[in-house]
């Protein structure tokens, strides 16, 4: 502290008398006030940060309070119904599983393929920069616009109808930038001397990628894929756009079946006026959050499991 104060005095041009004690100097400067301001700011910053924590707590408490009692076996085994006591999420739950099940391989292949191309093959030219710029812009396009694209392109133009496949394709385009960014980061973190070692032994570039680069970067890639999926699981608007409907009394049997997903089911319950449906919505949210949480836990597990080895 004292050194700081002395310097301050220099700055303020008050240090003419060397006989002042440090305490006197402190009183002369505005240090007391400045320190008080610092403390106040510290408190305010902390409170601001805690707002996030508090909101998360309130949100969870609100959902649990409303929905906990409604998460019952009936809730999982029944389809949507006009009678809240008999309504369940069976169709939505399996619809979500279907959509995600189709989205995973599509995003993985296209996303990792793009990342490999950009990191390992693409020359650093204008075209490559254009692709990169395009990807970062796509990441900022509102999801509902992807819904408009899916509706026009997949549902109508390609004639897929309001099906699981159309939903999955829309979701894939939506979350692709997330996977690409994560996969590129993972791939670029592979030490270059491993690539050189492989090439110097006469491995081709693709052999090097497949046997060295991808295994090394897989944990990062998978973390990105899971991140993208947790985004996809919670997305509502694009699937509303492509016409996933909520009153469906069957589970999809193949990729060209009509479907609904959890967030849409929740949405349709939220929009109903009777309070009982708000409880159903909360129960649905609990299931949705549980799915998200377990996926994120899995991502953390992957990260820890593989990061030890490096």
């Amino acid at each position, binding site marked *: 502290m004292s050194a*700081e104060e*002395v*310097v301050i005095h220099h*700055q303020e041009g008050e240090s003419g008398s060397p006989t002042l004690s440090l305490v006197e100097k402190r009183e002369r400067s505005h*240090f007391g006030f400045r*320190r008080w*301001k610092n403390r106040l700011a*510290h408190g*305010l*910053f902390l409170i*601001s940060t805690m*707002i*996030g924590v508090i909101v*998360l707590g*309130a949100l969870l408490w*609100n*959902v649990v309070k*409303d929905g906990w009692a409604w998460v019952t076996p009936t809730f999982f085994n029944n389809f949507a119904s006009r009678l809240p006591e008999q309504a369940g999420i069976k169709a939505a739950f399996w619809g979500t599983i279907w959509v995600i099940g189709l989205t995973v391989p599509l995003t993985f292949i296209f996303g990792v*393929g*793009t990342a*490999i*191309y*950009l990191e390992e*093959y*693409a020359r650093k030219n204008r075209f490559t920069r*254009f*692709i990169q*710029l*395009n990807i970062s*812009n*796509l990441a*900022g*396009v*509102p999801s*509902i*616009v992807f819904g*408009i694209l899916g509706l*026009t*392109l997949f549902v109508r133009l390609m004639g897929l109808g309001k099906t699981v496949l159309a939903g999955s394709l829309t979701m894939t*385009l939506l979350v*692709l930038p997330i996977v690409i960014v994560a996969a590129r980061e993972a791939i670029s973190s592979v030490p270059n001397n491993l690539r050189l070692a492989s090439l110097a032994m006469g491995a081709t*570039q*693709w052999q090097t990628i497949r046997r060295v680069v991808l295994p090394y970067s897989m944990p990062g890639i998978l973390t990105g894929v899971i991140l993208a999926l947790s*985004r996809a699981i*919670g*997305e*509502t*608007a694009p699937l*509303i*756009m492509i*016409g996933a409907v909520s009153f469906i009394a069957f589970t999809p049997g193949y990729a060209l079946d009509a479907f609904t997903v959890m*967030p849409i089911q*929740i*949405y349709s319950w*939220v929009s109903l006026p009777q309070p009982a449906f708000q409880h159903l*919505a*909360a129960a649905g*949210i609990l299931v949705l*959050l549980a799915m*998200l949480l377990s996926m994120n836990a899995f991502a953390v597990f992957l990260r820890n499991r593989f990061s030890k080895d490096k």
Partner: protein
Amino acid sequence: MKNHSLGTAGRFRRSRSLGRTWENMIPKLLLACALISVFTTLGIIGTLISETTSFFSQVSFGEFFTETKWTALFHESQQHFGVWPLIAGTLLVTGIAAIVAVPIGLASAIYLSEYANPKVSKVLKPILEVLAGVPTIVYGFFALTFVTPLLRGLLPEMGVFNALSAGIVVGIMIIPLIASLSEDAMSAVPKNIREAAYAMGCTKFEVALKVVVPAALSGIIASFVLGLSRAIGETMIVTIAAGSTPQLTLDPTESVQTMTSFIVQAATGDNSFGSTAYGAIYAVGMTLFLFTLVMNLLAQYISRRFKEEY
């Protein structure tokens, strides 16, 4: 390069095998993956432009941009297509979100980057990440069943659907985005600049406010712009909590309709393809897309153009 006229002993040659062909195919396949994102952008722009054009063959440009009444889903004789109420609704919600998210997000970023010890940020950061991962449908539920009743306790005359509640929750949604991007920008400020300020006797608050924030300003402002762009495109929270009354108002207690919630309303209604109301989806979608595109490009420009060279 040069002439080669040596013999063809063939020691280092391999017949053009299947593996060779495959090796040459791979970059092309991967390039095809990378082009998907380019085609996605083209698809979005293409569908929006073509459908918007046909919309404007039925509704005049002038009406769209000068009229102040939006009744696209009314009976044909009473239809008005003045987009301003939707833009006003969107900006009102976004403005409220900005009032919530900018100070809290920035304060959180300062706290995490300048004040928090590593142990605390190790707890707080994952919480912010969870907050960022909460699906928007859940936020919508939270707005309707928690924030709105709370606000109506304070402002009893306010309706169930209002811009205030939606705006606050949209703001909460983008806090993590602003906080984490701003914190990244501040963490990138080199330590020695901070140490120079501390050595002159500055308090933490002074260092943060007069040294770190100015140094990281471009990144911080870019984070605000990105956050607000996200707010403009947010759909489910406003669809659930802000209502569906397109009106030109700045009163946050009123029910409003945003561009996104109109799109959802029109898509879930029974408008037949080809009708003017249906075409309005694309015209509004185009407006929304342009809004967010400009903001995203602006954010990129700010963070690139004013990037400090440390």
